[in-house]
């Protein structure tokens, strides 16, 4: 056992820091660090910078244009770039459907979609959840009927993140029926500009437009856009859940937000003294910091295991649960530290061109909304209750 980073890993962190500080647009990093609203253009500029460097697809093999970084390198990249205020890249293309196509797609699909995913020319979104199918995803009933050389899709997807920015959507649809509800599900790739696709915004608790309903009315999808075999989409869809387990913990962003929390605790006061001197709050901050350290070490255990060719052990299954709990606790404590400063609700203050004054502290203005927004993390990607069911059954054998 040797849990120190190797010399190569240390040089790599330095290389990442150096690149990010030179090439991450400073207005973008400022928005990220100050919790301002991030637009597609902000993400895209960072995406293109990484693309030009050849760093846009960390886990992809080199022959597809990826970096072929192992999971320890990916963790280092996540931590170093997040610390400097890199925005979260869209995960749906390179991280999700790209990985699916490399494993299950036809050569034609790979040639058509992967290069534009890398360059940022085409953006993707994910069509999984439906109004009646949340945790019980396999009950989905958006239908695709084969007619000649096309599937005709009818139904509705929901909670589709950034569908308003997307050019393409990958969907789970029902193409047949079987004895089990998991049978007869297929995965289709669909152009968002196809006639019959309609995107309707859903405003979340923070008042922001991040997720959408996506409606399909007689949408024609060419049969060559079927991924894998017809009726076998469920196992492909699940492939995503086991892919890149370590990223879901969100350690990089949480470390950045912890540093920000400590900063807030030094500039906000109780009875004239910095909040960090309050024994109760400083204890809670220390507790959170220790839990984050445990999470990071767990991520590294999983990552190092992957590097040495082991299947992720049971420890991998806890990453989503603890990672998201920590993200939520960070927003709760930030809010508690700034207190009434976060009361003013001025969404324009976290937009692009705000030059005005805010009644509270400017940095505190987005924190209440961010707290509300972060409640999603224990719901998306399989609720934390579903995660516990999975651990109970698959790991503990209950």
């Amino acid at each position, binding site marked *: 056992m040797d849990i120190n980073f190797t010399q190569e890993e240390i040089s790599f962190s330095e290389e990442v820091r150096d690149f990010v500080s030179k090439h991450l647009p400073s207005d973008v990093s400022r928005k990220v660090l100050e919790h301002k609203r991030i637009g597609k253009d902000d993400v895209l500029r960072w995406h293109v910078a990484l693309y030009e460097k050849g760093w846009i697809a960390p886990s992809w093999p080199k022959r597809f244009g990826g970096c072929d970084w192992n999971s320890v390198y990916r963790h280092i990249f996540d931590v170093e770039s997040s610390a400097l205020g890199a925005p979260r890249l869209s995960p749906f293309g390179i991280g999700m459907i790209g990985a699916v196509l490399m494993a299950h797609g036809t050569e034609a699909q790979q040639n058509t979609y992967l290069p534009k995913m890398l360059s940022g020319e085409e953006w993707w979104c994910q069509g999984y959840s439906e109004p009646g199918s949340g945790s019980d995803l396999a009950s989905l009933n958006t239908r695709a009927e084969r007619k000649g050389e096309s599937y005709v899709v009818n139904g509705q997807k929901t909670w589709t993140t950034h569908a308003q920015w997307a050019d393409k959507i990958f969907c789970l649809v029902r193409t047949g029926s079987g004895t089990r509800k998991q049978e007869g599900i297929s995965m289709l790739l669909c152009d968002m500009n196809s006639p019959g696709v309609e995107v309707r915004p859903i405003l979340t608790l923070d008042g922001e437009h991040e997720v959408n309903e996506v409606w399909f009315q007689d949408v024609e999808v060419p049969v060559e856009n079927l991924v894998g075999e017809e009726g076998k989409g469920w196992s492909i869809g699940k492939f995503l859940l086991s892919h890149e387990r370590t990223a879901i913990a969100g350690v990089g962003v949480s470390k950045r937000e912890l540093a920000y929390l400590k900063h807030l605790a030094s500039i906000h006061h109780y009875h004239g003294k910095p909040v960090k001197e309050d024994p109760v709050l400083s204890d809670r901050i220390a507790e959170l910091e*220790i839990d984050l350290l*445990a999470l990071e070490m767990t991520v590294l255990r999983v990552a190092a295991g992957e*590097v040495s060719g082991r299947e992720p052990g049971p420890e991998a299954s806890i990453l989503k649960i603890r990672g998201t709990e920590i993200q939520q606790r960070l927003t709760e404590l930030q809010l508690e530290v700034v207190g009434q400063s976060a009361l003013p609700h001025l969404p324009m203050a976290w937009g692009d061109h705000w030059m005005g004054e805010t009644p509270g502290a400017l940095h505190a203005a987005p924190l209440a909304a961010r707290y509300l927004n972060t409640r999603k993390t224990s719901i998306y990607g399989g609720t934390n209750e579903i995660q516990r069911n999975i*651990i109970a*059954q698959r790991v503990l054998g*209950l």
Partner: protein
Amino acid sequence: MRFTFTDEQTLFKDGLDRFLEKNFSLDARRKMVESKEAHSEHVWAGLATMGALGVPISEGSGGLGGAGVEAMIIMQHLGKHLVLEPYLSSVILAGGLVDLCGSEFQKKVLIPELVAGEGKLAFAHAEQLNDEGGELLRTTATQSGNNWVLKGEKKLILGGATADRFIISARTRESNDQNAGVTLFIVESLDESISGKAYPLIDGSRVLDIQLNDVEVGPESVLGTIDQGQSAIDCVNDRATAAICAEALGIMEVVHEMTMEYLRTRKQFGSALSQFQVLQHRAVDMFINIEEVRSLVMNAAAKAWSDNPYERVRAVSAAKALTNRAGRLVAQEAIQLHGGMGMTQELPLADFVKRLLAIELMFGGERFQRLRFANAEDQGSEKTVFVSPKKRWKQI
């Protein structure tokens, strides 16, 4: 970066596990805690034969040159089997002090005996139990000719009842700084000027309180530099804290497995308890806590032997704070999920839960350790920047 054990470590781990499986049982433990030794010479001798007693002592001092990771492996297995042997007190605490500050002669006398299982040591340090971490030592050592005279009392000496020698911390210089003026002395436990009483802790292990009634020792008894014992004490306390977290991890794993087995076999309302989702989720939370502890135990093991106090304190205090919180959750949930049976002395669970409780209470509680974690300061980050002279002298 590698979290797996080397072949050598794995071989040692498996050998230790087999030995303890064969030579230590819970029934035997229950009889042992009633005896005044409260451990088994047979098991101690077996650990010596395996080389376990020399593992975390440096080669230069006569040990096997292992460190935190090896100590973690051993302690995790002592926890798994709930072994009573004074490994922590004799090898890691007292043995560590001899290793860190002993003279060549002291090492030559003490370490081979310790490694062979023929001489046990104990570290006598605590005095006031109501001021954790803040105590100013009251035990004094005053010079009398070439000799030193020790006076005071020491409490809660782990492994004290069976130790052949004590390492005693005493104040040799007046100071209000708890870190200054502390010296370590090696004293024979048979010394007639020492009186004491042994008593059990909540987990059945036995400790000792002693009175030092003008104990006179020669200059050869001074361990390390006079007045400068505190940093070595901090060092071995951190090592022991990391080690006891590994022991707790071994215990928690057993407690969790016992509880899973109970959920799978116990039936109510016509089905196994394991079928109830509310119980499944509680079982999962126990599991998550244990995996988190494992991560920080590994981190502490890797850093507890470090010379960098900042790195050491952060890793060790984080591990102990989390171990305490998780240990309490695991124990409480195990009792609750066992229902009425969980309340009985009869189940083996009882012994494991009580040892977890004892571990929680020693070497600093949850809040205490978090405070220490938060207050640790990175001395290393204040790098001295060398500024070269700017002035250019006129050359003749």
